[in-house]
């Protein structure tokens, strides 16, 4: 899929926040006094293209600046969305993602780390005003992170599509999106930014499912219990897409029925999921999955999975998730 095709895909969303701007379009806007928040190297990259002042902490924008540009991944963008909504709702917020996947730059959802779980808040007050892509940021993106980010984007699109809360219009939109995504490599490609943002906006209209329920539950325990392995949300989403897709297929006919109805090739999708799967990583997470299964079941995302997740469903992931 070309960038121009991506532009066509986003046309239907131009009237809604956040406005998707090219870097040239953003440069042409009068943003007033502008603060830029992100890691130093990313801020430096952005400041090569845009005027602004680097800030180290969001509070530095408490009493000044007309615009806040946040550059980073989903966690940092969500932090800026939350801070702006609570402390400076009059501040213009521009979100520049350093990687695709979370779609935080395009959604009205913020995910925050609470004591022992993820807290999800939803509201239009969290929507950035503008989202923009700075392609130079891709230069420093590790290949592995790019791959995991593809898994995150795929999990938004597929789980949003399969969600029992999705309607026909959304499923049509997300099935078109998945066809476009299936043409991209599972790695660095600029079109992922736009398609990932659309996937996130789509799932926000329905829900996600068990992949996210597992990722939200296991992220913190894995980071504590297996430090140094680099566990994060996107990596867990990439890992569990395939086993959860297999679970959904065997538990219910919804998966097959919906894919057929919207003319998606199940084998093509399963191959993509399998390409994102890692048996080494799966072996590392099985015991934590077993330990935290009760919490997985209670996660709100799990409870809107396309197939019902029961206490005994754990056995599938232990014994039968792989062919």
């Amino acid at each position: 899929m070309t960038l121009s095709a991506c532009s066509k895909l986003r046309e239907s969303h131009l009237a809604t926040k956040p406005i998707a701007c090219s870097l040239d379009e953003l440069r042409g806007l009068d943003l007033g006094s502008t603060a830029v928040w992100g890691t130093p190297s990313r801020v430096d990259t952005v400041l090569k293209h845009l005027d602004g002042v680097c800030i180290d902490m969001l509070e530095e924008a408490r009493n000044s600046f007309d615009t806040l540009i946040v550059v980073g991944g989903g966690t940092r963008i969500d932090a800026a969305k939350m801070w702006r909504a609570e402390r400076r709702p009059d501040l213009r917020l521009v979100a520049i993602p350093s990687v695709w996947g979370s779609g935080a730059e395009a959604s009205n959802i913020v995910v925050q780390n609470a004591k022992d779980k993820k807290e999800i808040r939803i509201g239009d007050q969290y929507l950035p005003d503008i989202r923009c892509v700075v392609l130079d940021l891709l230069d420093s993106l590790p290949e592995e992170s790019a791959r995991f980010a593809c898994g995150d984007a795929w999990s938004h699109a597929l789980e949003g599509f399969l969600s029992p809360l999705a309607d026909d219009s959304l499923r049509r939109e997300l099935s078109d999106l998945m066809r476009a995504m299936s043409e991209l490599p599972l790695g660095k490609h600029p079109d992922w930014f736009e398609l990932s943002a659309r996937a996130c906006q789509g799932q926000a209209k329905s829900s996600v499912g068990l992949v996210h329920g597992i990722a939200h539950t296991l992220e913190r325990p894995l980071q504590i219990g297996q430090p140094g392995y680099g566990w994060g949300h996107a990596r867990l989403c990439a890992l569990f897409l395939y086993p959860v897709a297999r679970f959904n297929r065997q538990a219910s006919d919804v998966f097959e029925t919906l894919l057929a109805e919207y003319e998606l090739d199940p084998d093509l999708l399963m191959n993509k999921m399998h390409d994102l799967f890692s048996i080494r990583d799966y072996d590392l997470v099985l015991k934590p999955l077993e330990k935290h299964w009760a919490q997985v079941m209670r996660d709100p995302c799990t409870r809107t999975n396309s197939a019902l997740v029961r206490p005994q469903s754990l056995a599938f992931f232990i014994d039968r998730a792989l062919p």
Partner: protein
Amino acid sequence: MSNHEQLRQLILDILLLGPEEYSLELCRDQVETWDSLSVVSIAVGLNETFGYHPTPSEATAIHCVNDVISLLEAKGISFGD
């Protein structure tokens, strides 16, 4: 397994209840875990177990286990077992 048994197991699994907490009179306002997400889960579970997917209005009109039985019986699924 009878339809009654299948429904009982479904409700226990979704609402995360112990067997002693189940009854046909069990209602939403008696069970903390019977929230809006459980309504979604019950709809999904009924489709998987009995092959009938309640409409959104049917699903939200379910307030107790007996309502589920009434709904399914109206769709030709017998609980006379």
